[in-house]
């Protein structure tokens, strides 16, 4: 850099030295924005790496698989028969031991090969085959207790193995799990031309093509998109802070810029050096943000892991790696955000006459024309939103609708506040309050970016909390309906099934066997359940939609029940016909809610199920009883079943609710972080405006309002503005909640939730927003109360 450029940069940078608070605002705003964005990206990146590891380990979504038609296990003899018939299949066994998931594979025949286990490069397979070795990543390996794995088996740390998983040779894993059968067979993509049909070799087995299986990455896409949307919202809130800081710095440096121009600095050089200066600062802010993002991600990752496990059964690692993709994306978006924030200011500099006024323009005073322009833009966004809500399809359209609503409302905010505050001012008779409202109206342009940030944060909070609370209410009611039986008994094998049913029939008031299998209907994979239609079902299950005599029709085998996910995906509803693979078409008698289940599900009568699949036996039983503990003891005594085979209704409800609560911990944490950033934005705006406030307040002080009163009014002003913003955020937040419940949820999960209102929660949030505004205004107000008369009087001096 030339000496001249260094001098110019020095002159520009002197502003930040003299205004350290503005520098802090700029850096903190960018660091917060980048931090929240890159934190979310870090979580997504870690999760995706885990899915990739799972796919590499288990062939998820890559290879066709052969499974038992009844959902049970595969005998070793079936595998041998298939190999003899020419099928290139590889066996896989999986099971849990001491809470850890074990997968056994046959390394020589596994399609796609093993993940990179960092084996001996000279004899890679030798290590896998000859030594008694199991492979796990460091985190999972650390979880293994001394009794989980026998002493003669070594544990080798291999980062490529999916989290929560231990991989080993099938022989070792079978012996650890005490099993001789298999769970599935992986089908190699290339198969010999001549081979016997599967139906001839093993008719009880079925091929599931890779596209039928729910790939973890796809299943969880909506969750990660949700997180990304939150990250983007937080980033937008942070960028409001940066925009405000850059705007103020430009206005306060108008004199310096004019002087530099008049001293011979060309416009091109000046704009280039301003860009260099700001991008340099942006790099510092972004670096701080990436560190912050790492901390945010590290703090949230365990809850995200719990959420994904609870919702999708997806295992992701609980520890964070410094992956280039997320920190580079954080850096890129920080620079992009800075570029956006400074673009219009650079344009102004480029069009500023050399002899433009050196005094800071009343940058905070928006003109009526400016307000009209913003309102016009807001109308464009709202119209786009309306179009998206009428004609948009897909998850992205849902998020785009939310974005259009949020940006449209943020742009309309200054004009709405102007109108509202003017109306209050007109209705006020007391002079002090007339001035208060007029002055508050005058502050709106200067605070508008921070107020917009607060609007976004509060409305997102209302929207998400309404969705979560509506979900909670619906989910609790749903659990009460669906888990009506007091005790559930799981069956280990078909032989046990008859005995358990006989014993349960003796002791329980009512017994409800549950048969299930995988099948296909309407061109998609489904879970098919067979139930015995008893009064318990009739009295407890509530349907989203149903035809006449729905239960009678189902019980008679003349109709079926579909879950909402299936109905929406297949675009079918009550009375529409559904053909289950290998059966005659049946009409849908009712649509049931099925929250938390990503798969389509159809329910038919037990009798019809057995007709379609004569060998099927119940996998579990529900039992009605007035004393679940006594019933469990009696059944255990008669059958010798272990305690683990029983699930108490109260326990399962508590477990489901616990999973649910943790599911939304991350959302709640991001909500609070976003609100905090908005509070910070308000504080920074008030602090940067403090200097501009003195000339506005000095005449009022001169006229006889003491500084303490003025300070109290400053506090009150921030609180009044927060209340106004909250009142506008309320309808916006409810609109957001509606889009989340009626559009995003349907697109992402396949179910639509009813919307409930929670006035007490909203009032609490409003109070929180007012407290945040009050805290933000406290420091500037105290400074004002302590402002020396001398400082106020300088306003009236000839030479300011």
């Amino acid at each position: 850099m030339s000496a001249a450029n260094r001098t110019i940069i020095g002159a520009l940078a002197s502003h930040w030295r003299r205004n350290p608070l503005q520098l802090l605002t700029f850096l903190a705003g960018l660091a917060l924005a980048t931090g929240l964005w890159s934190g979310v990206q870090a979580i997504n990146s870690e999760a995706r790496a885990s899915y990739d590891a799972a796919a590499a380990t288990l062939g998820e979504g890559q290879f066709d698989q052969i499974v038992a038609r009844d959902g049970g296990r595969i005998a070793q003899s079936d595998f041998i028969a298939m190999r003899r018939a020419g099928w290139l299949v590889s066996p896989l066994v999986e099971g849990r031991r001491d809470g850890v998931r074990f997968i056994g594979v046959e390394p020589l025949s596994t399609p796609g090969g093993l993940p990179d286990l960092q084996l001996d490069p000279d004899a890679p397979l030798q290590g896998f085959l000859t030594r008694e070795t199991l492979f796990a990543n460091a985190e999972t390996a650390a979880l293994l207790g001394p009794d989980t794995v026998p002493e003669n088996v070594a544990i080798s740390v291999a980062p490529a193995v999916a989290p929560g998983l231990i991989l080993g040779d099938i022989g070792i894993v079978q012996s650890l799990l005490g099993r001789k059968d298999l769970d599935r067979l992986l089908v190699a993509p290339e198969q010999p031309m001549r081979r016997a049909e599967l139906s001839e070799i093993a008719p009880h087995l079925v091929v599931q093509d890779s596209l039928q299986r729910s790939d973890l990455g796809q299943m969880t896409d909506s969750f990660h998109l949700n997180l990304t949307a939150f990250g983007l919202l937080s980033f937008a809130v942070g960028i409001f802070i940066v925009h405000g800081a850059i705007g103020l710095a430009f206005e306060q440096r108008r004199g310096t810029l004019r002087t530099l121009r008049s001293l011979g600095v060309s416009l091109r050089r000046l704009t280039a050096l301003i860009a260099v200066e700001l991008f340099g600062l942006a790099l510092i802010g972004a670096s701080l943000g990436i560190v912050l993002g790492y901390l945010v991600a590290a703090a949230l990752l365990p809850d995200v892991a719990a959420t994904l496990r609870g919702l999708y059964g997806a295992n992701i690692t609980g520890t964070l790696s410094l992956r280039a993709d997320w920190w580079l994306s954080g850096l890129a978006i920080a620079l992009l955000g800075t570029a956006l924030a400074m673009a219009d200011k650079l344009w102004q500099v480029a069009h500023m006459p050399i002899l433009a006024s050196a005094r800071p323009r009343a940058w905070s005073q928006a003109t009526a024309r400016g307000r009209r322009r913003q309102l016009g833009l807001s109308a464009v966004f709202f119209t786009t939103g309306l179009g998206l809500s009428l004609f948009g399809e897909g998850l992205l359209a849902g998020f785009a609708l939310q974005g259009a609503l949020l940006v449209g409302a943020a742009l309309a905010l200054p004009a709405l506040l102007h109108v509202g505050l003017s109306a209050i001012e007109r209705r006020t008779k007391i002079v002090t309050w007339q001035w208060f409202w007029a002055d508050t109206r005058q502050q709106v342009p200067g605070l508008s970016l921070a107020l917009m940030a607060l609007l976004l944060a509060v409305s997102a909070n209302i929207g998400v909390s309404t969705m979560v609370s509506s979900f909670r209410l619906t989910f609790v009611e749903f659990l009460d309906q669906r888990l009506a039986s007091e005790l559930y008994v799981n069956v280990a094998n078909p032989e046990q099934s008859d005995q358990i049913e006989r014993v349960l029939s003796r002791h329980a008031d009512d017994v409800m066997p549950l048969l299930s299998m995988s099948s296909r209907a309407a061109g998609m994979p489904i879970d098919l359940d067979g139930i015995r239609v008893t009064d318990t079902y009739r009295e407890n299950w509530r349907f989203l939609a149903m035809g006449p005599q729905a239960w009678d029709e189902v019980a008679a085998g003349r109709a079926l029940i579909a879950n909402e996910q299936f109905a929406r995906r297949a675009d079918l509803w009550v009375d529409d016909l559904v053909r289950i693979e290998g059966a005659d078409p049946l009409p849908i008698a009712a649509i049931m809610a099925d929250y938390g289940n990503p798969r389509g599900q159809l329910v038919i009568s037990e009798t019809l199920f057995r007709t379609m699949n004569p060998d099927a036996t119940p996998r579990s039983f529900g039992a009605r009883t007035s004393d679940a503990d006594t019933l469990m003891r009696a059944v255990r005594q008669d059958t010798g079943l272990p305690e683990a085979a029983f699930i108490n209704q109260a326990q399962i409800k508590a477990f489901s609710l616990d999973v649910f609560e943790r599911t939304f911990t991350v959302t709640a944490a991001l909500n609070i972080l976003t609100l905090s950033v908005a509070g910070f934005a308000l504080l920074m705006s008030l602090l940067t405006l403090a200097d501009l406030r003195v000339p506005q307040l000095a005449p009022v002080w001169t006229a006889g309002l003491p500084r303490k009163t003025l300070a109290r009014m400053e506090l009150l002003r921030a609180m009044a503005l927060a209340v106004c913003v909250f009142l506008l955020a309320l309808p916006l937040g409810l609109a957001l909640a509606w889009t989340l419940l009626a559009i995003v949820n349907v697109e992402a999960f396949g179910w639509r939730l009813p919307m409930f209102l929670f006035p007490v929660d909203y009032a609490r949030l409003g109070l929180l927003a007012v407290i945040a505004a009050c805290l933000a205004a406290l420091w500037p107000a105290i400074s004002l109360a302590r402002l020396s008369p001398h400082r106020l009087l300088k306003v009236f001096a000839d030479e300011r």
Partner: protein
Amino acid sequence: MVLTLTSIAKAYPGADGVIPVLVGVDLSLEPGDTLALTGESGSGKSTLLHIAAGLEMADEGDVIVDGQNLTATDDTARAAIRRGTVGVVFQQFNLIPSLTVLGNITFQARLADKEDRSFTQQLCERLGLKSQLEKYPEALSGGQQQRVALARALAARPKVLLADEPTGNLDESTAAEVLALMLSLVEENDAALMVVTHSEKVAQHMSRHVHLRGGKLI
């Protein structure tokens, strides 16, 4: 007396220690008095005016406005005296930008609960502001803004009007017009007027003229 300043001393900290600005200044005004206070730049004229208005505290001495000693009161009490008894006009007008012309004019009178609508109307007519009442200060010329500032100071019928270079920002003819209006309104309301000025022309219009030099009145 409506204003009595006794042994007023004031000093400011400077780079080379404390700089005395006022040293034992005595001054008093009766109703109807008009006083010009002149002096060089930095001589302490504005400081003395600020002390008289209770905007700034003297280091030593007493300030008695309409029988109340400002030096013995707190900020809140001084503010109350300021809004009820004193009117101040500044060179920079210092109107409240968020209020209309009418809102500015009536502001102090309403604060002091002394609003007299017919008097305000008269003031506005005399000052030629009747057609400007719904406008905001930014839409007015400098002369018009100073008239609004004068109307605001007088609308509360102050016993003491303190003006700091009230015509300093105005052209000659507008300055003469504003000054004439100020003097006539002060006379009609039997108020006392102290004007800080550099202008000999302005000083000549006052009944008394004092000069500040070296922190003392001569």
